């Protein structure tokens, strides 16, 4: 018996020893393997020297376009510009080879070079390239954009969009607009107008006068129309406006009722809104072409602030049917609703992310207002902001940034627009000429 056991052990060692030796030898002969699981999260340094003005008429755009690109990229909080006065190399010719060593010396990890000219037809022609400095390679293909000289800001936004997408992998969003309510005057006699501006606050124009109160403008999926609520008739009513012509039309709802909080469906053919009658507020949908309305909820509680999912199949909305305002999701055609918010406090103004994975909302808790996000099933709630009054979130076209209204405390308190990354970083105020509230982000422009 003992001999048998010893024989077995010996045989096992004879079999395993070569395998172990081979493994050890393999470890020594093969490449060294390490796993990196921890990194850093910090803005990526980049350089964008002034574009090369290739014609005399283009000189005024060379620096301006570079500044808008830098503002776009640095404004995301994901990038950090290397100041131009730190540049060692000067780009004097768009086609000249890049001195990568000079850019590495100033720790620029990405480099954007470009040239601008005005052709014989008076059009602005912009060419640009993006480089990975440390790899010494061009990233992607160079691009050329052509437009009118008055559209130089849009051209700059489009260039920044290309750079942003190439470096981050995210969809672009700089070439987009925001419709908002412009607010002037004291709090007790505030005048409100609907305005439209670039996402960064530039180029604001106004679509209505201050003769009546206007609320909650919302862009259509194509960006060519705007829904809003107006007190022009004394009651809140929903209007749809063509952005290009600024003509508007009232959407007919039941007589003697109040309709508000409208929002387009993803295909732009239907709107969903709140209608208040007899002291009760419920959700309705309307086919814009036919004017046919359909009741979606019929509860004694208040249902409002509806927002479609990106596929148009579901609606997230606010209801106090449980005793306090909470968030619910139901089919777009109406039906049983499922509650998704369960935290302490009051939830409102939900908006479905363009990516479909998150819902942004306003939360009031312990005397403070927050903008937050949660999964569509209510998991992973995260509060991104906290202040005296934050409300009304709207998503950037790529679902990476949220813009919202922040109002300061006191009689002289003023409403303004702010943006924040969905990670909770990079909280910034959007510059506006006047007080501003109720932002709604357009889709990416064509």
């Amino acid at each position, binding site marked *: 018996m003992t001999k048998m056991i010893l024989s077995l052990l010996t045989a096992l060692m004879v079999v395993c020893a070569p395998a172990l030796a081979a493994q050890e030898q393999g470890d*020594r002969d093969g490449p060294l393997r*390490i796993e990196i699981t921890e990194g*850093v*999260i910090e803005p990526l340094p980049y350089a964008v020297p002034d574009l090369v003005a290739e014609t005399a008429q283009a000189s005024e755009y060379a620096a301006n376009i570079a500044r808008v690109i830098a503002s776009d990229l640095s404004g995301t909080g994901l990038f950090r510009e290397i100041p131009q006065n730190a540049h060692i190399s000067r780009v004097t010719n768009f086609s000249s080879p890049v001195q990568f*060593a000079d850019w590495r010396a100033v720790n620029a990890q990405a480099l954007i070079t470009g040239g601008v000219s005005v052709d014989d037809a008076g059009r602005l022609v912009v060419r640009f390239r993006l480089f990975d400095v440390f790899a010494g390679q061009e*990233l992607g293909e160079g691009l050329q954009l052509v437009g009118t000289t008055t559209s130089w800001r849009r051209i700059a936004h489009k260039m920044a969009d290309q750079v942003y997408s190439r470096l981050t992998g995210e969809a672009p969003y700089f070439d987009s607009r925001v419709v908002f309510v412009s607010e002037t005057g004291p709090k007790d006699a505030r005048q409100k107008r609907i305005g439209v501006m670039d996402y960064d606050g530039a180029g604001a124009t106004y679509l209505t006068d201050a003769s009546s109160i206007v609320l909650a403008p919302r862009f259509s999926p194509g960006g060519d129309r705007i829904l809003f609520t107006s007190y022009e008739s004394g009651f809140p009513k929903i209007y749809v406006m063509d952005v290009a012509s600024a003509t508007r039309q009232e959407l007919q709802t039941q007589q003697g009722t109040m309709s508000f909080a409208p929002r387009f469906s993803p295909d732009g053919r239907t709107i969903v809104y709140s209608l208040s009658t007899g002291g009760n507020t419920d959700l309705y949908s309307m086919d814009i072409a036919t004017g046919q309305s359909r009741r979606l909820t019929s509860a004694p509680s208040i249902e409002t602030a509806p927002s479609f999912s990106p596929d148009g199949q579901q609606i997230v909305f606010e209801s106090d049917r449980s005793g306090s305002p909470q968030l619910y999701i139901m089919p777009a055609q109406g039906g049983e609703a499922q509650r998704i918010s369960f935290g302490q406090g009051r939830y409102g103004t939900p908006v479905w992310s363009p990516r479909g994975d998150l819902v942004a909302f306003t939360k009031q808790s312990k005397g403070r207002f927050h903008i937050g996000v949660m999964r569509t099933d209510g998991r992973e709630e995260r509060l991104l902001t906290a202040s005296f009054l934050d409300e009304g979130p709207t998503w950037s076209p790529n679902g990476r940034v949220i813009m919202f209204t922040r109002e300061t405390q006191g009689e002289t308190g003023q409403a303004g627009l702010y943006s924040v990354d969905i990670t909770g970083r990079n909280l910034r105020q959007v510059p506006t000429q006047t007080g501003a509230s109720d932002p709604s982000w357009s889709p990416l422009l064509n």
Partner: protein
Amino acid sequence: MNTGQLISGLAHVGLIGVAVFGGAFRAEPLPFEVTEVTAISAEEYAALIAQPEPDALATIATPEPPDAGETAVETPVEDAAPSAGQSALPELAPPDNAPEPVSEPAPPQPPEDVAVLVPDRAEEATPQPAPRVAPEAVAQPEPDVEIDDVDRQASEADATAETPAPDEPETAREAASTRIVTEAERAEAAAPTQSVRPKPRPSAQPPVEAETPSETETAETSPATDSVDAALAEALGGATEPAGGQETRAAQGPPLTAGEKDGLRIAVQECWNVGALSSDALSTTVVVAVSLGEDGRPMANTIEMIDATGGTTASARQAFEAARRAIIRCGARGYDLPVEKYASWRDIEMTFNPERMRIK
């Protein structure tokens, strides 16, 4: 008797033997104490118990009253610290010419720049807000210290060296937090708003040798059509041979220790910046192969992605480019690896797994 009975019998005998001789049935001795005694004589005992005569105390010199200044400052009484104006030895009459007792100085106040407030809820240390999120917090450098990827002491010209080392400014890594702190998570009024700035961390990187050309010098000597490949090839040209030749020349030392591997891993992760990556790219793990020269510098043209999992082709490209930047940037001065083990680290496969970076 079969084998089973034999084994059973031996086991039982062994067990009984262990129980008997191993002390299993032995009771623990009761605790006892040993006291050493000494026999003394009756005379010695009488001398021990004899009381001293009262006049013996008179021969003890009366201590001189302490100086007034010492009385006020020193507080030998443990139970009650003397209050202002109170003497430390009140039973002794102060000498006639003693000055008036000096008030005890007030306890030193904490300096103004020391944070003394404590948040109400201190269950978790709130990380210092910083634009940089890193696996380990980095202290805020002094204001006049240049931000760089590594800590480095300011160099001074060495007159004895053949080639004086170029003066390099002192640098320190940028302050970093360990996680993202949103506005909603920031501590409110009770939290301290200022604290003493810690000194920069001691240098973790040896100073650059005088013979080693700096990044700028390398750049200046590069041709006009410079690229990372050309620059690194030029920099490595004189020091190393092609991979085939290195194999025969490289020392066949022992494999890297765990500490040396960790050092390399930490060096690379300091430059692995995932802050600008999309959520898709942050779900993509890439395996990157790279070859290093004997001076520890990566050869840019050898960096390639050999595997990617968990994402799309586009996200793999973003993840690879971030990994490539990390390898080149932090290896620009050469990774700190033992040259006698060059054969062990010449070819490296680095797996960049961003799973833990998604929630930061």
